[in-house]
């Protein structure tokens, strides 16, 4: 499975899908490109061979393309859900079905979600029906400050979910990190710096031993983060060889480092790590107090992934939490994706609700929200950019993946839902366990036989 997925990820995405990509044009719809612009009325979107060809007004429909009348509907890029647990969980509280963290494992940074993601998990189908077509899947830290390596998936109804394995490493940098590291933020800093130095020296040792880098991985040229070389290491080594190997691409800036951090002062110290490790390619996850240091985050060019509606001092590292956090950071020039799970009700399917609330916030004096176009971008194009897929995903521009959602109304409105979903030009089924239950219990009539025969 792992090998197959890796091969698929290195092939052209559209040929990796078992279903046939459709050549389709949707006409007469209200089209939102996902790039931050406002929606365009009476527009056309053309997808051929799994890729967007054109979107907007004055778009000619090529011959041989199936035309769908989009009047009365809205079309957007598929949603990109950031830092999800899609495919890692069947039921959160059923621990046997939950692969989000590995708190009894001797390994940390080397843990890799790619081979364990199950695209048949109900949450995949449920999220797909909500218009989510791609997502980052993030492991949570269990036994160490390092959570392991996350992946980027598509939500097509097939086994070929993992598009980019080992796309990022996860580290806990705040209160939770302090607990995992030994009881204090001081331990987080020491453990993290030690680990990155160990990874650096590990790489040097490996190269001097082998004389060359492992060239087997096109995704991450150089040392394979899954396969440690047989290096003899000296001194007080805290990482297993697998974990040290996994951090090599992080130190080299070839793999993103998702830093989970909330407090303003912690954000600044996270950004300062780059003085010691200049190649680090960081993404801040959480950043509840990001608005207080938004200028510094913007100056560092580091993007943020956060839930949008955090407004309570849930902990002492989130005292300044406000719903204006996203808007203020965006205004300061920070690239912000809305995502993650902050409250119990958060689900990838409800990303439009979070984004829509940012638009509503603009009408509250003293608050800072987003324009409609900016709000949609936080869950489409910007989210894809933060994941390293800018221009290829989350936007209706020529050459981008043919991920489309046709909605029955304004996609950010409470009353709207997808009516058609395409991944790489392939129309997707929208049924799942929940829709089947809905259909079974549409009526409760058991005069002929029990509901169990209704399917």
């Amino acid at each position, binding site marked *: 499975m792992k090998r197959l997925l890796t091969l698929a990820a290195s092939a052209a995405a559209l040929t990796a899908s078992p279903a046939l990509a459709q050549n389709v044009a949707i006409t007469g719809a209200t089209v939102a490109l996902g790039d931050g612009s406002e929606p365009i009325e009476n527009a056309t979107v053309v997808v051929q061979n799994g890729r967007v060809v054109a979107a907007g007004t004055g778009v000619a429909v090529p011959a041989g393309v199936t035309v769908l009348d989009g009047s009365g509907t809205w079309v957007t890029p598929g949603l990109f859900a950031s830092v999800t647990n899609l495919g890692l969980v069947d039921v959160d509280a059923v621990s046997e079905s939950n692969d989000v963290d590995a708190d009894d494992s001797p390994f940390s940074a080397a843990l890799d979600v790619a081979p364990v993601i199950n695209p048949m998990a109900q949450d995949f189908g449920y999220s797909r029906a909500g218009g989510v077509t791609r997502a980052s899947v993030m492991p949570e830290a269990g036994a160490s400050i390092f959570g392991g390596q996350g992946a980027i998936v598509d939500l097509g109804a097939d086994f070929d979910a993992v598009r980019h394995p080992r796309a990022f490493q996860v580290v806990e940098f705040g209160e939770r990190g302090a607990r995992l590291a030994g009881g204090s933020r001081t331990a987080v800093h020491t453990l993290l710096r030690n680990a990155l130095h160990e990874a650096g020296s590990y790489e040097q040792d490996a190269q001097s031993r082998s004389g060359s880098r492992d060239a087997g991985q096109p995704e991450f040229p150089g040392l394979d983060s899954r396969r440690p070389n047989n290096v003899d290491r000296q001194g007080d080594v805290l990482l297993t060889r697998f974990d040290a190997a996994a951090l090599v691409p992080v130190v080299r800036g070839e793999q993103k480092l998702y830093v989970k951090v909330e407090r303003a002062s912690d954000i600044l110290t996270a950004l300062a790590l780059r003085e010691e490790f200049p190649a680090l390619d960081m993404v801040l996850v959480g950043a509840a107090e990001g608005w207080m240091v938004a200028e510094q985050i913007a100056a560092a060019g580091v993007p943020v992934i956060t839930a949008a509606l955090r407004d309570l001092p849930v902990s002492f590292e989130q005292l300044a939490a406000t719903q*204006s956090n996203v808007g203020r950071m965006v205004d300061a020039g920070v690239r912000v994706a809305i995502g993650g799970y902050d409250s119990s009700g958060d689900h990838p399917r409800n990303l439009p609700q979070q984004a829509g609330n940012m638009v509503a*916030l603009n009408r509250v004096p003293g608050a800072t929200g987003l324009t409609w176009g900016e709000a949609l971008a936080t869950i489409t194009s910007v989210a894809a950019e933060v994941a390293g897929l800018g221009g290829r995903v989350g936007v209706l521009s020529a050459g981008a993946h043919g991920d489309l959602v046709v909605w029955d109304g304004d996609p950010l*409105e409470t009353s709207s839902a997808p009516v058609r979903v395409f991944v790489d030009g392939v129309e997707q089924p929208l049924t799942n366990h929940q829709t089947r239950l809905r259909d079974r219990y549409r009526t409760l009539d058991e005069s002929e036989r029990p509901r169990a025969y209704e399917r």
Partner: protein
Amino acid sequence: MGRYLKKGGPSVLLLTAAALALAGCTAASGNDRPAVAASAAAGDEPYASTYERYPGVPTAIVGATIYDGAGGMIENGVVLFADGEVVGIGGADLAIPAGYTRVDGTGRFVTPGIIDIHSHLGDYPTPSVQAHSDGNEATDPTTPEVWAEHSVWPQDPGFSRALANGGITSLQILPGSANLMGGRSVTLKNVPSRTVQGMKFPGAPYSMKMACGENPKRVYGGRGRMPSTRMGNFAVNRETWIAAQEYAAEENPDRDLAMETLAGVLNGDILIQNHCYRADEMALVMSMADEFGYQVTAFHHAVESYKIADMLRDNDVCSAVWADWYGFKMEAYDAIPENAALIHNQGACVVIHSDDENGIQRLNQEAAKAQADGRRMGIEIADADVISWITLNAARAMGIADMTGSLEAGKMADVVLWNGDPLSIYSRPEMVWIDGAVMYDMNDPRMRPVSDFELGQPGEGDVK
């Protein structure tokens, strides 16, 4: 995490003297206590409410679309309230008496104050530190003797968020669901107060929290004691009800806090709010209620109510539900977003609840999502009926529908003016009145309460 066992939320609001003076300066308005407050406080009830309504002015909201909470809608309507009470509602032709302050409702919407039947604000406040974990007396599977009001921290910042972002004017604080019988709830007015007594809803009946399913059996089974199974859950409940019946039959029993609560349930003074997810378990609980002669007022969470909506209707039991939470625990695996609409469609009672310090800020959006999920399967539910899910239906299931929950003359003037349709994502509360007093005004930063905890902290007084 909260969903597994507990919930949290938080805080409180303090009105400044300046704000009060502002609210009270315009016209003659007494500071009369509502009659219900006087009657509630007059008895020997312990920990009685000390809430008195704050000064308000006779107010006419003119030109808004009105959802009255009881299923009625008036376009370009007028809402009148004075002396803490609703005076009347009507169309544009409704006469506005002299001395009323006009509030322009053009392009805006009015609803009754929003009511959350299931909150843990104050008993799981923010910051959510262990020292604040006061919602589950998880030391015995039956604790009818505990009262949630003795855990509520009025400085929980969550109260202010519920007011400003959610238009919440009344809410029921419940014990958590670790125990089969978790204790008494308390119903609050969402007003800032130095004490919980200053928030207690005058005249509101008590409820007792019960829980079936996974939580009690996990908490106690995990300690090697009963109950460790669903059948154990029922056995412990039934033994306890038998003891309660014996206590209730005694002529002059010794005081027993647990038994006093249970006897109150058996004689109908105390309502039952029953955390329960699965349809089959709800059916068994209704049979248990028949066995011992009490009524379940509402099942909470009730994610499978759609499977037995006919039985819930016939037993006159409300379902207090989320719009679309699902899958987080085994007994939530069959939750569907059409639950509320399917319950409503069978003629059973729907309440949208939060159980969450974030969700309480958006009950209107949750109700709107549930309405739309119904519409997509062909169940049309009028906007005005959907508003009743978060107003009058909640009030009914909390036993306060004769006092609040709809814009009916004589009821408490608990009113929200929204800057747009409350069923739209793009709308927010613009003004909130509780008993006719302005407690929140979007356009006046002084009318945004700040809890003691937030003073001097980063972001104090921010819009949040």
